[in-house]
């Protein structure tokens, strides 16, 4: 990890503080008020707000624009960028543009496949993969050059993130891939939502044993469940999600109106365990369309006030 | 109308089901003309033969094969079944009712055993000769 970028998230993580970020999805429309409202809910309880890039391949306001609105509010965004929709020319151009708007964190992703989205007839791009996007940002940042080697007038000093899914197959390969992402230049890693703590622990142990946690900040993904239906849906339908049966049972074991409460309880228990795990440097809260609960979770987890 | 509006049925049959077809099978007085096509094994019933039978004027085509598991050439009747299914869907696609083509498993015997089957097919397709088909809305929309 170099100290090249100027992000606050980076400062917090480098200082050894347990970081908290939260997710914010831009609207399917043009109204910046929606972003501001979500920003308002998250202000003061998270260190950075992670803005999705046409998540699940559904067309939304661009991640860059939504991030810029958050910057205007004094919040620090993490801009997600997927390689699904842009070729290397557009990716590099948008990285520079984003940095010029005050966006200092980037999360490099491949993106959900367009066939899952609202416009499955679209052509995908996948010119470069997320690994190469990480490397591209790193080269821009550290060498001040774009992919062609051209020397840029000023370089984007971005704090670079990448994703990892400890619950996908083949399990053994997941650590090799993590190591590759770190080599490529990832400063922080955001994981898939953690429900299966045993498997996550196993993965973290492998990361620690390989010395990877010395080189990268791992933020564990956490999503509070609202209902038993949601738990079942994620277990069955969402690719790369691992929701153990006992949690589904727990969600289903309480009265329907009590389910959100139970979900929050599970969430807090998970966070408590994650904080104890070696190598976990923070959490990333994905309370999708349930942003109002983030403050409660952060406070409940004893992570307030934020630095 | 052709043949005094007789309904024509072509029967493809494996010679292991029965060796000779009897065209008097259809009860006397019925307005039906039967035609038999002998096959050494039902797997030889190619899709194009089935279609050509319709082209030649058949109102219905029946394929008679040995019971599953009893094919002399192991899987000939299974192949025939798959092919019949495929041609049925093709017939549906082109607006000729796929039900005009059917396959039945029949234990070895003589052709009189096929009588109830032919009756059943006739009952299903009705007794409208193909020549009148073009005046009707395509099957499936009817």
């Amino acid at each position: 990890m170099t100290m090249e970028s100027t992000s606050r998230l980076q400062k917090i993580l480098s200082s050894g503080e347990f970081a908290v970020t939260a997710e914010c999805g831009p609207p399917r429309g043009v109204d910046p008020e929606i972003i501001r409202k979500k920003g308002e809910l998250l202000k003061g309880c998270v260190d950075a707000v992670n803005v999705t890039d046409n998540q699940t391949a559904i067309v939304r306001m661009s991640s860059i624009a939504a991030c810029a609105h958050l910057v205007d509010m004094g919040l620090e965004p993490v801009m997600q960028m997927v390689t699904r929709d842009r070729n290397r020319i557009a990716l590099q151009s948008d990285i520079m543009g984003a940095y010029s708007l005050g966006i200092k964190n980037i999360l490099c992703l491949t993106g959900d496949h367009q066939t899952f989205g609202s416009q499955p007839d679209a052509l995908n791009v996948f010119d470069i993969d997320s690994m190469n996007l990480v490397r591209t940002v790193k080269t821009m940042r550290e060498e001040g050059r774009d992919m062609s080697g051209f020397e840029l007038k000023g370089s984007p000093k971005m704090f670079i993130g990448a994703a990892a899914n400890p619950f996908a197959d083949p399990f053994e390969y997941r650590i090799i891939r993590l190591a590759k992402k770190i080599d490529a230049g990832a400063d922080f890693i955001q994981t898939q939502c953690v429900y299966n703590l045993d498997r996550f622990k196993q993965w973290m142990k492998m990361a620690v044993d390989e010395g990877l946690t010395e080189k990268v900040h791992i933020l564990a993904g956490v999503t509070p469940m609202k209902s038993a239906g949601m738990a079942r849906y994620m277990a069955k339908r969402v690719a790369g999600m691992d929701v153990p049966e006992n949690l589904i049972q727990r969600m289903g074991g309480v009265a329907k109106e009590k389910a959100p409460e139970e979900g929050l309880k599970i969430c807090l228990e998970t966070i408590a365990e994650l904080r104890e795990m070696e190598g976990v440097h923070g959490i990333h809260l994905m309370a999708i369309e349930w942003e109002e609960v983030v403050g409660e979770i952060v406070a409940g987890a004893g992570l307030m006030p934020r630095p | 109308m052709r043949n005094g509006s007789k309904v024509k049925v072509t029967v493809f049959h494996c010679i292991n089901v029965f060796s000779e077809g009897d065209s008097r099978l259809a009860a006397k007085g019925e307005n039906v003309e039967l035609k038999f096509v002998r096959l050494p094994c039902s797997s030889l019933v190619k899709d194009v033969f089935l279609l050509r039978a319709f082209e030649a004027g058949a109102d219905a085509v029946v394929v008679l094969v040995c019971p599953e598991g009893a094919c002399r050439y192991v899987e000939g009747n299974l192949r025939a079944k798959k092919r019949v299914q495929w041609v049925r869907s093709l017939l549906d696609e082109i607006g000729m009712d796929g039900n005009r083509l059917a396959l039945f498993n029949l234990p070895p015997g003589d052709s009189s055993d096929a009588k109830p089957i032919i009756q059943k097919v006739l009952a299903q397709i009705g007794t409208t000769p193909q020549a009148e088909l073009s005046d009707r809305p395509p099957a499936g929309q009817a």
Partner: protein
Amino acid sequence: MIVAEQKPMAEIKELVAPYKKVLILGCGTCVKTCFAGGEDEVAVMASALRLAFKVDGKEIHVEEQTVERQCEDEFIQESAPAIARNEAVLSLACGAGVQAMARRFKSTPLLPGVNTTFIGVLEKPGLFTEECSGCGDCKLAVFGGICPFTRCAKKLLNGPCGGSQNGKCEVSAETDCAWHLIIERLTALGQMDNLRTYIPPKNWRASLAAGPRRLFREDHVI
């Protein structure tokens, strides 16, 4: 081989509707092997079209012919007399075959009767799978003989995405995850190092991205 699939009859009917005399022209190479446009399929198509038009109370005259390879001028020449007798050609060859015909027969309408889908193999009876996208810069050696440009839905070069589960691709439960296969194979080959190696972005210039490609063999020109 090139794998193709016959178009639905409704679409074919619409394509041939303006013509009274149509030559159905098959190809005896790839499309024959994948049951889309060989001699047998030409016969079925001819019969089906005649029946379809009869149902509609219309008439059509179809002629059948199958040449060895429709993508080679040498072989398509022999269809000239049949083409002269007909108003249009319904070609059951791949897109290259249809276009080779268009090159030679300048005033004959050419109708594609199949959808040309991919370069692939017969994986098992009845199942064809896509294996290569003709990228012009083959890197199979690095990936243990399994092509991620073609067989990974996201064209990933540095390992599987987070959706790979139980060996299947997140995009379709029926499709193997290419990366799962690559890892299995490289492990079996004892080439684990390839898995750790960083693979740089692909140079797409050799692919269709740089426009239609041509291959010139000087040594074959007199």
